[in-house]
């Protein structure tokens, strides 16, 4: 059952489901994404941008990307 498996994945600490984790890439660089469980985001290390996961749904439009600072934290002062 899809619903059940989604609940279980959430409890296991996975931010996105298996299907998506296998096919998603960064929309700008087309490179693989790293799941960051702590910030609930998908990080594109090649270009230093993180994309949020809102309500369990990855938001991979370029506009939603946040540029990361040098130490990996959000440079959230970007306008």
């Amino acid at each position, binding site marked *: *059952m*899809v*619903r059940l498996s989604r609940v279980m994945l959430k409890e296991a600490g996975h931010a996105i*489901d298996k*299907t*998506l984790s*296998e*096919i*998603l*890439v*960064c*929309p*700008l660089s*087309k490179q*693989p994404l790293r799941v960051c469980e702590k910030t609930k985001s998908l990080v594109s290390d090649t270009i230093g941008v993180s994309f949020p996961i*809102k*309500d*369990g*749904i*990855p*938001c*991979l*439009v*370029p*506009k*939603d990307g946040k540029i990361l600072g040098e130490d990996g934290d959000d440079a959230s002062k970007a306008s």
Partner: protein
Amino acid sequence: MRRINSLYLRIGILKIVVGKPTKQPHTSLASLSFSTSGGYGGGGETQQNNNSSRVKIFDRDLKRRDRAAWLSRNKNDTFVDAVAENLLDRLEDCKKSFPSALCLGGSLGAVQRLLRGRGGIEKLIMMDTSHDMIKSCRDAQHDSVDKSIDTSYLVGDEEFLPIKESSVDLIISSLGLHWTNDLPGSMIQCKLALKPDGLFLAAILGGETLKFVRDAGNLLTRAGFSLPGVDVDEYVVKYKSALDLIEHLRAMGETNGLLQRNKASFLSFCRIFFSILNRETALATAAIYDSMFATEDGTIPATFQVIYMTGWREHSSQPQAKRRGSATVSFTDIQKQFGGQS
């Protein structure tokens, strides 16, 4: 007013009568703001224009928010369903099955709802630029019958497709791609995301000239699809008044992009109509349109042309054209062989 006089609108012969669209309260017209100054930045959000050489014709941010709201209020759209049904029917013509499928924004809700097990899809990935739209699809799924399909949801843009190369068997887009600013680019990315021998199925709204068919074919070829196929269908929808028509277009999410094409097409008329005129002028213009184009029984028919495109990712099993000049038999030989008549 000058604009309206210069646009030539063709009315099709009534073939189908579709049920009345839901009437929206008039306040909803005033609540959407259209600014002509600062044109493309509706809603106070500015977007970094990565590719300055590409004209940004559609304000995709405006489309994201508004379309989701309108579409969620109009779940029973016969026209949208007819188009989705036509697309999905084609899956039955293929002997192939498509274990993984990516469904792109537009009327993706209709595709998901009408799928009914066609195409042998096991994993369905739903993608749209609007978070609200995707959420409403996910919430609707719990009511639908088909829980055997493993469905995932993401927010993404066809122009910046976040899908790995050669990873899905099928990509479907129903009434969504004509809103991209870079259609060839979007189609190329779709092709790349397909596995070899994967299928691309799309329905887009066309203008009223046949030139679109040739253009669509060219687009498929330029994107590198094999065995491209294009066909066109026309749907005539009857409305009580011009305002009903325009509200239906809104509900399909079709009016909120700013359109700057110079084609004399019905949809251009509506888009310009709503992007430039204020509410009072809009209502006045609708009245004029009513008087110009109403049929004898007072209804307004509108013709929607839908272009269906199919293309495959190349695979060695597909028939290939032979290289020019490599023929070993000439037409003369064939004629001799079969006793040709002249």
